[in-house]
């Protein structure tokens, strides 16, 4: 049985299993924000079923609604799956429908442009090799100044290192301090690591557009970089969908029987802390902090306790949101929403439940181990006047590091 046949059967079974009880509605942040019947996950399942069952060519009279609903009103966060009476994998159905819409050239233009940029340049922001290398060198100088250690490095193309570290290109472009924080942690832990001058992007926008071929190409690129550099593991920076794609989805796309070792930076750092490889002082992060659980990392990824273990070690006081872990509310930034400007107002409206959840904690710092979430939470911070600082977890760890010199 081919992969496409297998997936088609899974979709067919799932579609036939929906009893349309409507009890998924309250699980969805879009519905919670608006109480519009069309925001209900079951409605999206209904439309996904129309798309998946449609003969070729797709009915042009229906495509506008399909695109608007399945791209513009779903972040594929998977919360509905846990609340579904029959346990339908609703994000998989929505993505399956997006795959058909993608094949018909119906992906919203700016999301498609991001996919195309990745295929053309090797990263989703079109950063050139020179720009990337220059950024890394600048951060290396910063690291040396920060640690007072002239031997501190951000290794590039170091063959035989233990692992290859990859980032969300937003870090290179807008949030270089995130990469600096990780480099400081690696330096403090004495890690054997490297960056690649060519393949540094862990994001995978084919996941969102539904284009399996593009998704496979992005994932393959990192695997090939691992082989070229002779590293034993691929370490993924703080990015939810990148983790889901490279850890869980890539083996299927690439037909891997024995996938390489792919781990989240959070697993690595939690291990460093457990092994006492980092000397940290939590009093350096004295502000009340809360933790946002990125859907792709937690509910769909299984990285649940590691961020909690890290925060407990490096932050003086932190509180859980309610609900949390696999029950967390989506911030609204996933599913490619940040890459589709035409749905921006809707995205901000759908983030209201998350904003209320943050406000209820009373925290002034929100730790969010995902750069897409950070962008969305930053927007929610402004939209709803939350007055919080949004940060990665590694920045909190780096802020708590105590340098022996």
């Amino acid at each position: 049985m081919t992969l496409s046949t297998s997936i088609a059967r899974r979709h067919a079974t799932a579609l036939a299993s929906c009893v349309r009880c409507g009890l998924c509605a309250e699980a969805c942040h879009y519905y919670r924000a608006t109480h519009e019947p069309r925001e209900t996950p079951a409605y999206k399942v209904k439309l996904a079923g129309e798309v998946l069952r449609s003969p070729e060519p797709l009915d042009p009279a229906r495509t506008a609604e399909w695109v608007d609903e399945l791209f513009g009103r779903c972040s594929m966060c998977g919360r509905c799956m846990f609340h579904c009476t029959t346990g339908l994998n609703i994000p998989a159905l929505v993505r399956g429908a997006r795959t058909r819409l993608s094949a018909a050239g119906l992906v919203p233009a700016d999301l498609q442009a991001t996919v195309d940029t990745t295929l053309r340049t090797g990263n989703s922001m079109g950063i050139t090799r020179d720009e990337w290398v220059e950024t890394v060198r600048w951060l290396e100088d910063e690291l040396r100044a920060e640690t007072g250690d002239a031997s501190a490095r951000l290794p590039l193309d170091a063959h035989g290192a233990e692992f290859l570290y990859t980032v969300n290109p937003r870090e290179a472009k807008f949030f270089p301090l995130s990469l600096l924080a990780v480099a400081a942690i690696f330096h403090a832990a004495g890690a054997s690591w490297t960056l690649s001058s060519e393949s540094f992007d862990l994001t995978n926008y084919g996941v969102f557009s539904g284009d399996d071929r593009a998704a496979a190409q992005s994932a393959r690129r990192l695997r090939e970089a691992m082989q070229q550099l002779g590293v034993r593991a691929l370490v993924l920076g703080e990015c939810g969908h990148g983790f889901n794609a490279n850890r869980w989805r890539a083996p299927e796309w690439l037909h891997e029987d024995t996938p390489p070792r792919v781990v989240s930076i959070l697993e690595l750092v939690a291990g460093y802390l457990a092994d006492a490889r980092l000397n940290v002082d939590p009093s350096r992060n004295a502000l009340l902090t809360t933790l946002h659980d990125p859907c792709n990392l937690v509910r769909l990824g299984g990285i649940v306790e590691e961020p909690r273990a890290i925060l407990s070690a490096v932050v003086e006081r932190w509180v859980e949101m309610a609900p949390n872990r696999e029950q967390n509310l989506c911030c609204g930034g996933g599913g490619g929403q940040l890459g589709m400007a035409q749905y921006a107002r809707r995205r901000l409206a759908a983030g209201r439940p998350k904003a209320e959840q943050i406000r209820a904690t009373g925290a002034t710092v929100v730790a969010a181990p995902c750069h897409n979430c950070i962008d969305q939470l930053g927007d929610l911070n402004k939209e709803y006047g939350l007055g919080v600082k949004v940060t990665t977890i590694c920045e909190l760890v780096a802020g708590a590091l105590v340098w022996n010199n």
Partner: protein
Amino acid sequence: MDPRLKDGVRAHPVVLVAGVLLHAGIAASGLATLAAVTGAAWPNWLRIACAVLSATGAVSGLLLLVRRLREPVLQAISIADDYISNLLVVGVLIAAALLSIVPQAQPVLLLAWAVLAAYAPFGKIRHCVLFFVTRARFGAFIGARGVLVGRSRPS
């Protein structure tokens, strides 16, 4: 996942109760039909219990049908199959409840089951089988990723 933790159930607890009663009624009506067809001797209390459960199930099914007709969310997601399946199941439940009062209703009950069985492969009644497939896949999905490992209940 504990149904009580589900947002939809918290918002609509009556729907959970009605759903459970509907399914209990279906099981009871199946038992009543089996006993009637095989001519098995069964205690009077069990016969009455099955009749009561079938009747309660029928009422629950009708309440769920009314809800489907009234709720905007359900109107948006419903298709013809939802009404057909509901009415076929309610038909069986009413016939099963009647059987305890009117033994001559057995042919009606068997006819109701036959129509239901003939329709089942084409509608959502398939979930009586597919529910287990979907649940198993859901369990495999989150189990492989370790989503619920090392934790108890959300705080």
